[in-house]
C-alpha cells in the first residue's frame, strides 16, 4: 500500500477505505442484523468507506433466493439507516448481495457458502478477503466455527485475510469464556478474532481517552489525592422486552458489568499508553484490570435486585416475574451494583462503584468522577451549606457530553455558594450526526484495526473479577425487589451509605 503514489499520510481528506473484501453475516434474520448491521453497512457505503465490489452474504435457515435477501436488506436499510437513502448507493451494494440458505451444522450449505465466496472473488473482486459476523446465539459458535474450518473457509492464503466477529456474551463465567476461546483460537489466530463491545465504538467512550491524555488540566487531578470515588452507571428504563430467553439466567451483572462497565472502568482508570495503537492500549487496559480487586466482604460491597411491577414514566409496567416466559422462581437479577478497588499507586483507597439495571429511573450511561471536598473552606458554615463535592461527569449516552460541577457564588447574596454545572454537549460542539458505533466497528474489522476490540485476556480478567460475586449471589437466595421506574433496591443505597457516600441521581 505504501507504494501507491496517490496515498499520502498528509492527505487527510482521503478517508480510510477498506481494501477489497466482503462480509458474511450468520443470523441475518435477527434483530441486531436488521436494525444495526445492515444499516451500518449501508451508511458506510453511503459515506464512501466501503471498497468497490464490497459483498454482503447472508446465511440463515430460510428458503430465500438472493433477491429475497436483497429485499430484506433494502427494507432494513430504508427503515433503520442513519443516512439518507440513495438509489446509486443501493445499486452499488445490491450487486454484491448473496444469500446462502442452511443450518449451522449443514455441510452442504457451507460448501455452497464456499462456492459463493469464491464466485464473489471472481465477479466482484473481493480477492479472498472475508469477515464472518456471527450474529447468532453463542451455543452455535462451535458448530459454525467448526464448519468454517472444515470447509476451508477460515484459511488465509498469502495476501488475503479471514476474520471472525463475535458479539457478547463472551461466555458466562471464566471457565466457559476459556472454552469459547479454545474453540475460536483453534481456527482463527488471536488477531483475526474481533469481539464486538459496541460501547467501545461510541464517540464519547473514545473521548474519555482524548479528554484524559490530550489535555493538561484533568490528568493532574486524576488520582487518589483529589478523587474521592468514581461511579459508573448504565441504567435502562426498559424491561427485558422479548429477550427472556437470552436474559433469564444471565442477569444484569453478566450482561452489562462484565463487559461494558469494566471496559469503562479500564478506560477511566488506566495509565497513559505509550501510543494509541491497539497493542499499547491493550497493555494498559489489561494492567488496570489485573489490579482490580473485590472487597473481602461481598455481602457489604454488592447489591442486586429484581424489578417489581410499578409505574415507570407514567406507564404501568409489569414486574420481572410477570414478563412472558420468565419462570416464577427466577432469581435472575435485573439490577446489580458492586464496589471495586484498583490496587495501584494512583487509585489506592478510591472505590469504584459500578451499577446497572433495567426499569430504572431513566436511560443513562455515565462515568462520574467525584472529587474530595476542599480541605478548608474560609467561609461561614452557612455559606457553603448547599455546596456539594466537585464532580466531573462523562455522559456516554444519551445527551453525550461532559459536565463539570463546582461551587459558585449565588448572585445578590452576601456570600452564598451553590453547585453549578459547566456543560459541554457533544451535539453542541460537533456533529449532530455522529456515526453509529456499529459503523465504526464494522469499518475497523474490515480495515483490520483492533484498538476498540477487547482481547481474550481482558475478557478473562473481567470474569476473574465477576465470578466470585456471581457465586456469592448464587448462595444467597432471591434478589431484593425494587419498584419499576425507581433507582434500584434499598440495599444498593445502603451499600454506599455504609461508606458515607450516596449514588448520584444521574
Amino acid at each position, binding site marked *: 500500500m505504501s507504494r501507491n503514489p496517490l496515498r499520502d499520510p498528509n492527505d487527510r481528506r482521503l*478517508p480510510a477505505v477498506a481494501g477489497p473484501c466482503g462480509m458474511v453475516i450468520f443470523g441475518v434474520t435477527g434483530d441486531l442484523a436488521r436494525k444495526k448491521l445492515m444499516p451500518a453497512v449501508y451508511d458506510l457505503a453511503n459515506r464512501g468507506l466501503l471498497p*468497490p465490489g464490497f459483498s454482503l452474504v447472508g446465511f440463515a435457515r430460510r428458503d430465500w433466493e438472493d433477491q429475497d435477501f436483497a429485499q430484506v436488506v433494502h427494507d432494513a436499510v430504508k427503515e433503520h439507516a442513519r443516512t439518507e437513502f440513495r438509489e446509486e448507493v443501493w445499486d452499488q451494494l445490491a450487486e454484491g448481495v448473496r444469500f446462502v440458505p442452511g443450518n449451522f451444522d449443514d455441510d452442504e450449505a457451507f460448501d455452497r457458502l464456499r462456492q459463493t465466496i469464491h464466485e464473489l472473488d471472481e465477479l466482484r473482486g473481493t480477492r479472498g478477503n472475508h469477515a464472518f459476523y456471527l450474529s447468532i446465539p453463542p451455543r452455535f459458535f462451535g458448530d459454525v466455527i467448526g464448519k468454517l474450518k472444515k470447509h476451508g473457509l477460515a484459511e488465509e492464503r498469502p495476501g488475503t485475510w479471514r476474520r471472525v466477529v463475535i458479539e457478547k456474551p463472551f461466555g458466562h463465567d471464566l471457565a466457559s469464556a476459556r472454552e469459547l476461546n479454545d474453540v475460536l483460537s483453534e481456527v482463527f489466530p488471536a488477531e483475526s478474532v474481533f469481539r464486538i463491545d459496541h460501547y467501545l465504538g461510541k464517540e464519547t467512550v473514545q473521548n474519555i481517552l482524548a479528554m484524559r491524555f490530550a489535555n493538561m488540566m484533568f490528568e493532574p487531578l486524576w488520582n487518589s489525592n483529589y478523587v474521592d470515588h468514581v461511579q459508573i452507571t448504565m441504567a435502562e428504563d426498559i424491561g427485558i422486552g422479548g429477550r427472556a430467553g437470552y436474559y433469564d439466567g444471565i442477569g444484569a451483572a453478566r450482561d452489562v458489568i462484565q463487559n461494558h462497565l469494566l471496559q469503562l472502568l479500564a478506560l477511566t482508570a488506566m495509565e497513559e499508553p505509550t501510543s494509541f495503537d491497539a497493542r499499547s492500549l491493550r497493555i494498559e487496559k489489561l494492567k488496570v484490570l489485573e489490579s482490580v480487586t473485590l472487597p473481602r466482604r461481598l455481602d457489604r460491597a454488592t447489591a442486586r435486585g429484581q424489578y417489581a411491577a410499578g409505574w415507570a414514566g407514567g406507564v404501568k409496567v409489569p414486574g420481572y416475574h410477570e414478563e412472558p416466559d420468565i419462570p416464577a422462581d427466577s432469581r435472575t437479577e435485573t439490577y446489580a451494583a458492586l464496589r471495586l478497588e484498583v490496587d495501584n499507586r494512583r487509585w489506592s483507597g478510591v472505590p469504584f462503584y459500578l451499577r446497572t439495571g433495567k426499569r430504572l429511573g431513566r436511560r443513562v450511561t455515565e462515568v462520574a468522577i467525584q472529587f474530595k471536598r476542599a480541605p478548608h473552606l474560609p467561609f461561614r458554615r452557612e455559606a457553603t451549606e448547599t455546596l456539594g463535592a466537585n464532580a466531573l461527569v462523562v455522559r456516554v449516552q444519551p445527551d453525550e457530553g461532559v459536565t463539570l460541577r463546582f461551587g459558585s457564588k449565588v448572585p445578590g447574596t452576601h456570600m452564598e455558594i451553590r453547585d453549578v454545572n459547566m*456543560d459541554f454537549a457533544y451535539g453542541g460542539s460537533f456533529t449532530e450526526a455522529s456515526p453509529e458505533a456499529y459503523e465504526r466497528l464494522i469499518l475497523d474489522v474490515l480495515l483490520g484495526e483492533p484498538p476498540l476490540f477487547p482481547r481474550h485476556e481482558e475478557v478473562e480478567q473481567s470474569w476473574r473479577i465477576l465470578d466470585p460475586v456471581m457465586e456469592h449471589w448464587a448462595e444467597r437466595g432471591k434478589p431484593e425487589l425494587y419498584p419499576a421506574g425507581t433507582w434500584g433496591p434499598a440495599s444498593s443505597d445502603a451499600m454506599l451509605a455504609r461508606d458515607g457516600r450516596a449514588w448520584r441521581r444521574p
Partner: protein
Amino acid sequence: MSILEDTDAAAVAAAFVDARRAAGSPAMDMVMTMVIVVPEDVAEDALHAARDASKEHPSRRLGVILGSKRGPSRIDADIKAGSGTTGERALMRLTGEVVEHPESVVLPLLLPDSPVVVWWPTAAPEDPASDPLGRLGSRRITDAAQAPRARSKALLTQCHSYAPGNTDLAWTRITPWRALLATAMDDVEEKVRAISVSAEHVSPSADLLGAWLTDRLKAPVTRKRSRGPGITEVVLTTRSGDIRVSRKDGRLATLSVPGQPDRPVALRRRGIVELLTEELRRLDPDDVYAATVRRLRRDAARSQGAG
C-alpha cells in the same frame, strides 16, 4: 429575529446575547466564527448552507454584504439566534465609507480564541489572504466554479495567490474521485504512463484533479472536453491496460481495472452543505492542495510559454 438599523458591532454583539438569553440558553458552545462575504442576491442561500453545515460545526455566522461605497456610512443588521438553529447568525449590510473597512465591523464579533473561517460563495478577492476580511481568518474558502466573471481564469488566479489556509471548493468537490482513484490504485503495481481527465468545458475541479494526478503519478495529463455533468471520466493508462472511472450521469460511476470485474460505485455530485461540512472538518492548511496548486501554476506557466 431582530433587526437593527444604522447600527454598529457593539449593538450586534448585545443582540446576540439578548437572543440567547431569550431562548433560555446563555451558554456558548460554538466552535468557530464563519464570515461569509456575499452579494445580496445569494446571501440567504449562502447563510442557509452555512447554517446546515453548522449542524456539524456550531458557529457564529456573520454574513457581510458590501454595498455601494457612496453615501453616508451605514450598517444594517438582522440577527437570529437561539430559535431552533445551532449557533447564531447576523447578516450585515454595509454601505458608504464603512465598506472600505468591513474588518472593523467583524473583528469585535469574532468568538474568543476559536478559529475564524472566511467564505466567499461567489466572487472572491484576487488575493484572499491579504484581503481585509480574509486576514481575519485562519481558513479562507473560495469557489472558483461560482466566480461570476472570467470563470475559466478564476482558479488560476486563486492558485497564484495561494497562501497556507486557502482552499477552493473546486478541490473539495473532487475528494470522492480522489478517494476512489486511490483505492483503485491500491492493487496496481505498475507505473501509470498517461492520464486523461474528461469534463465539461469549464471545470476547475477537473483542472485540479488532473494536476493532482500528474503531480502524484509523474505522468502527463490530457484534459478532454465532454458534455458533463462535471467530471465524466478519468483514465490512468498502464502497460497492462487502463484503469478507468467513468461517470456519465453525475451519480453512479463504473470502475474498471485490468484483470478485475467492472464494478458500480456511487459517486454522486455533492451539494454545497456537504462540501462546506467537509471543508470545516479540518482547519489546518491543506498541504496536498498546496502541492497541487503549485503543480497547476507551473504547468500553466509552461503551456503559456509554449503557446
